[in-house]
């Protein structure tokens, strides 16, 4: 199995609410610790396939893979600041950012 340059997770936006979500084992999650991490090309392709199926089911839109690094706690963290921002919410209104568990509602 060919390794990807960096581990990857799958980002999407929920169709109904537009919230940022990540693909987990059993569905879409808001917490990166629950996201499925692909370490090789095949696993990344599988993530994309699942994402496209979810698009076809009209659950999410705009799915894409993003590079991450695995932290000391084992949680994936995006390498690029755009995806970091997507997970952290607007830096200028932290008071408004929804809790991760609320993102799926």
């Amino acid at each position, binding site marked *: 199995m060919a390794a990807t340059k960096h581990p990857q997770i799958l980002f999407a*936006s929920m*169709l*109904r*609410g*537009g*919230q*940022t979500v990540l693909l987990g084992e059993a569905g879409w999650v808001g917490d990166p610790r629950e996201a499925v991490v692909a370490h090789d090309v095949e696993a990344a392709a599988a993530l994309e396939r699942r994402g496209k199926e979810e*698009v076809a*089911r*009209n659950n999410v*839109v*705009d799915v894409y893979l993003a590079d991450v690094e695995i932290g000391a706690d084992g949680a994936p963290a995006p*390498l*690029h*600041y*755009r995806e970091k*921002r*997507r997970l952290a*919410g*607007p*830096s*200028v*209104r932290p008071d*408004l950012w929804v809790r991760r568990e609320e993102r799926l509602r």
Partner: protein
Amino acid sequence: MTAHEPNLAARSNEPIISYRYDEHDRAFVRARVAEFREQVRRRLEGALTEDEFRPLRLMNGLYLQLHAYMLRVAIPYGGLTAKQMRRLAEIADRFDKGYGHFTTRQNLQYNWPKLEDVPDILEALAEVEMHAIQTSGNCIRNVTSDQFAGVAVDEIEDPRPTAEFLRQWSSLHPEFSFLPRKFKIAVTGAREDRAAISFHDIGLRIVEDANGARGYEVHVGGGLGRTPMVGKVVRDFVARADLLAYLEAILRVYNRFGRRDNKFKARIKILVHEIGVDEMKRLVEEEFAAIDRGPFAFDADEFARIAAFFAPPPYETLPGRSEALEAKKRENRDFAVFVSTNVAPHKASGYAIVTVSLKPIGGIPGDASSAQMRLLADVSERFGFGELRVTHTQNIVLPHVKQDDLFALWRELSAADLATSNAGLITDIICCPGLDYCALATARSIPVAQAISRRFQDPERQRLIGELGVKISGCINACGHHHIGAIGILGLEKKGQESYQITLGGDPTFSASIGELLGPGVTAQEVPGVIENLIEFYLSQRREGERFIDLWRRLGHARFKEAWRREGEDGVDI
């Protein structure tokens, strides 16, 4: 959209302060809401794919951003009634997170609507004669204008009847709904340009010919974005009777020759640049000569009917100087400062124009909470005729305040954090949403604006520095107008980090110019120090009455670059 009820204006008991829908308008907007409701239903049920639905939602102003959908609400030429402002506040509370963002296009954006709620939002807007149509897509967008329209002392003519005339002409125009790219029109009727008409696809300046007849100086091909251009004058004078036919000719030339193969070269500014202004003029004149004038025949009665909606409200007869105002200014220094910065002269004796800054120190430029919106609606009624204006500089204007009422108004505004005395000063920063919200952004812009605002928060120093436009964009698309800031800041990505380019010398007015890049990018943390260096240089070099932009023009790039490189007080050697 053409209104058809000639007596409508006479039926209301309230002062007429804005265009009002007739049954034709109302039916059209309601039909559009019903249509979109059905489209959303079909999308949620899976009958429409995202590829099919995306253009439909965009036609209704609905984008998908980094964290949520974003709905852009049209505010034609920036005019709002108190009732409409209250409705915007209600929608913010009921469907969003209790605030809205006023934009450089004089519109309002909600940052958190849910797709399934959008039809209800549009219905709530339609009830107060508002919509989100043509706030996106490759069509003629919301026509913008001077926020002091109808009340400015330097005005030749109120531009709003023209703007409304154009709004009706351009709404769902069948030939111009799928242009090569978006198309923006701005109109001013004043001697000072407060609408940045040189940076629109078409800019219209109301002028008089030698006989005193009113017409339009037509600028074409202005714009910002990745290829900023100053619009070129293609006609010194177009008679009012010919306006629609002439604009139709410009749009037809653009529709025919504008590039559709490359999104980044599709705006009319690129066409004008590539073929040259003389060839553009020739093509437009040729089309104008050949055009069937029948459908565009000027209806003077219709123009007069529209203009009647913008007739002056029933002002009281007042002396030009308010003794009450002068006394309060003597008693209260903060109030006196507010008057000196945020109050402009009014064409009606005894009245004033008030700019309410949406730029509190350290705040988010252009954001207003629902409570602030309600307060603005209330004070517009108590201290005016229930009318408000949104400015392209992301502030709110109360256009008809009695000088005698200014102190009471200021106290109300102060209590709601709406009395920041900085209109036109260094902390009155134009700023796009940037990477805190926007899917297109390459860097954050709001935190940079906040840092500059805090750095220069001292009111005395702000006034010492004087008139200065700082404008910040979070990407090359330039929604924050950085190209036309005397100091412009552009956020980009550089080696995986947010990086900021500084430009100097931009000017949005009739003396239009595009800012020049000063040097390599700096970090967000370094930006305030760089600005500090530039300001210190300006203060040390300026002559009596010389603005920052004037000094830039006198000394030029090299001298400012030296100042920029100077080690700042933060110890940052840029």
